[in-house]
């Protein structure tokens, strides 16, 4: 509005507690966080090894998808709404492809998943399509294709297929899928913080116009992060089919939204530029832990969903307040 003032002055540093309202909000948030921790930890049967294992297993599929979503969100493209259907489709394709052998099936599923998502990324990054609308449309198209091919039924592994029991197995009592989740998180974090495309992911999310003007490969980066998200959805699909031994469209459940919730609770900035795969992992586990405490305390399904929604809302508000304070 005022060009002279806004360009000639440096931004003054502002303390974290600028106004009484935000101070009260932050204080209230802190108290709520402590209360939630106490509520969770004091739950009978929560702090047991078997419950921790259950939490890890329960969160692993959502966690793997959420890690892919994290890269999309950091790049400033909100999130992909087609993750659930891609995970379910990957699971179905994987079981079908087992007839070519285990390793080929894994590779084919991952490559196809990444390519389908990369195509969406191309439309978004190069043609400037809106990420949310495009991925919702893609989700419909993919559902149609899958129903067309599978007839809407359940896919079972072929009779002579190699065993995939190990995917749903436990090592040292911990689900294999939990190890995979941690591995994917570490790899994604290395991508984000150690590679050139990772650096561009943050920069494009922080200021897309500036990234473009600096000659950074913004469009290519959008393709890469979407490919990464598709890859993660494919991995989640493979792990789910190993766990279930069958696969159908119903596998997608609320995966898309649960993953977005995990990314937000992990503190990722909705508009991009900030976030990390490790934080998303912690966000996933946090949601899972609170959910587990609610289950152990016999709260109804409605309460569980309500609390989950409240957590996401609080996380989004907290990130928003924190980021506006820093400006």
């Amino acid at each position, binding site marked *: 509005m005022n060009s002279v003032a806004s360009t000639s002055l440096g931004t003054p540093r502002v303390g974290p507690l600028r106004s009484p309202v935000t101070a009260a909000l932050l204080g209230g948030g802190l108290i709520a966080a402590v209360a939630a921790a106490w509520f969770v930890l004091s739950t009978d049967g929560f702090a047991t090894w078997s419950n921790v294992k259950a939490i890890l297993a329960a969160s692993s599929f959502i966690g793997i998808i959420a890690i892919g979503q994290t890269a999309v969100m950091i790049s400033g493209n909100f999130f992909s709404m087609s993750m659930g259907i891609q995970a379910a489709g990957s699971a179905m394709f994987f079981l079908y492809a087992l007839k070519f052998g285990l390793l080929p099936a894994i590779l084919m599923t991952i490559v196809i998943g990444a390519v389908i998502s990369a195509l969406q990324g191309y439309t978004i990054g190069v043609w400037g399509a809106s990420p949310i609308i495009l991925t919702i449309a893609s989700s419909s198209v993919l559902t149609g294709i899958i129903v067309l091919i599978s007839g809407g039924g359940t896919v079972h592994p072929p009779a002579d297929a190699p065993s995939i029991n190990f995917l749903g197995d436990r090592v040292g009592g911990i689900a294999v899928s939990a190890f995979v989740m941690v591995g994917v998180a570490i790899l994604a974090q290395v991508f984000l913080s150690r*590679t050139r495309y990772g650096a561009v992911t943050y920069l494009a999310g922080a200021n897309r116009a500036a990234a473009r003007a600096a000659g950074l490969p913004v469009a290519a980066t959008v393709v890469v992060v979407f490919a990464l998200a598709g890859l993660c959805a494919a991995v989640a699909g493979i792990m789910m089919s190993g766990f279930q031994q069958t696969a159908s469209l119903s596998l997608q459940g609320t995966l898309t939204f649960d993953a977005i919730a995990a990314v937000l609770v992990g503190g990722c900035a909705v508009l991009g530029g900030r976030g990390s795969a490790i934080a998303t992992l912690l966000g996933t586990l946090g949601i899972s832990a609170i959910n587990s405490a609610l289950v152990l305390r016999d709260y109804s399904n409605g309460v569980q969903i309500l609390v989950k929604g409240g957590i996401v809302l609080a996380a989004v508000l907290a990130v928003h307040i924190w980021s506006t304070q820093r400006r």
Partner: protein
Amino acid sequence: MGSDETHSGGGSRIELSLRSITKDFGPIRALEDVSIDFHGGEIHGLCGHNGAGKSTLMKVMMGLNAPERGSIHIDGAEVRLRNSEAAHKAGLTIVDQELGLVPLLSVEENIFLGNIDEPFITRPRRRRARARQLLAEVGLEDIDLKAPLASLLPGERKLVELAHVLGHQARLMILDEPTSSLSHGEARRVFAAAQRAVANGAGVVFVSHRLDEVFEICQRVSVLRDGKLVATRPIEEFDRATLVEMMVGDVEEEPAGDVAARQGPAIRIEGLAVAPRVEDLDLDLPGGAIVGLAGQVGSGASDILRGLAGLEEVTAGELIVAGNRVPLGGPAKMGRRGVHYVSNDRKVEGLFLDHSIETNLTVTKLAGLSKLGFLSGRSRRRAAAELSEQIEVRSSGLRQKVGELSGGNQQKVLIGRCLGGPGGELLLLDDPTRGVDVEGRAEIHELVRQAADAGNAVLFVSTELDELVDLADVVVTILNGRIVSIAERSEMSARRVLGEMTSTTEAVAT
């Protein structure tokens, strides 16, 4: 809606006095002790170069900037304009450079946009009659009231905006560069409308870079320079030369670089077309020279840079650097081909304010700082440390966020990221010292000279005369997307450049 017969002028002629207005923006004094009287029934020209304080003065009059000192008097009584609504109530209105109306609404709806005096229940026939009357006042008798504004010619849109302002009982209208996007004939109609409003008793403040127009329609002229009023005089007491001299003032010269010693590549641009303004532009520039494109906002000078940087679509044209054709493409491709662009808006399109100095200094060099796609933190730190030493940025360290730096230091970081390359690159700098104080400006100019000394070609755009005279070895003046003149440093003066930038009659390139 008050009386229907007298509208503009509101009955009596306005006497608006600004007395000793001083306005600071942080350390920068935008206006100092400015006193001007504006009268109803006359067109008062406001001249001054970029940064002279015209915009700030207009904002003070429209209640958008509160002055630190000084007072505003209307008809002898002091008024406080706390916001734009207060200014509107006092009868002060502005027709902005940009369209202030809604393109998708009809002419009639636009005329009554935001008209608080309208009765609660509108009477369509009366409203139409009133719209017709207002449009007749600006010379738009035969226009379709139901036509969407977007379907009108640019000049007609401007006239509708004038009618809109008249409908708001304006006693004093500020016309900010009203003809900047209009053709000659359209500008005539705007002048006629302004003159008619003045005949009805309204006052008009006419702000324009086009001095020919100032001489044509103004009765009195005030000249601002560096935030101070140089003079207010009747137009008869000015001629073009004295006016330009008052706007320019004394220009202190910076030392010229040694063009002959520089190894920078020669640049040729052939048949460049960048929609909508630039068409079939040819430019042949010697190696080693820092080339300044002189042009007002909207002249097309910025579009040339943005086209070459891949940020605007180039419909035709070739870029030849040191005899080699460089294919034009998107910004990432141009970056790989050694073409670096610095935006004139460092906050929106330049820096990553939330990121560190280190990150910002190395964004254009990421490819060179990584191996197999992995970034080397150590080489990145080293590259940033070297650059930051060269540009002498005042900070608490490389990790400090760029958003916390002063404007001048931010701009140094933005320019700094173009330095330290292998040489032979083309740097495109759009208004490289916008919003930077005098001291920071000289430092940034020195950085640009260093870049040229390091064997790069530099092409910059500036709307500021001093900058062109100080920094450019060759000045190319652009008007309406065309080259008006090319001048070497030795044969150039601020006066000559300003004369050419502000002329409406186009000379042919020599």
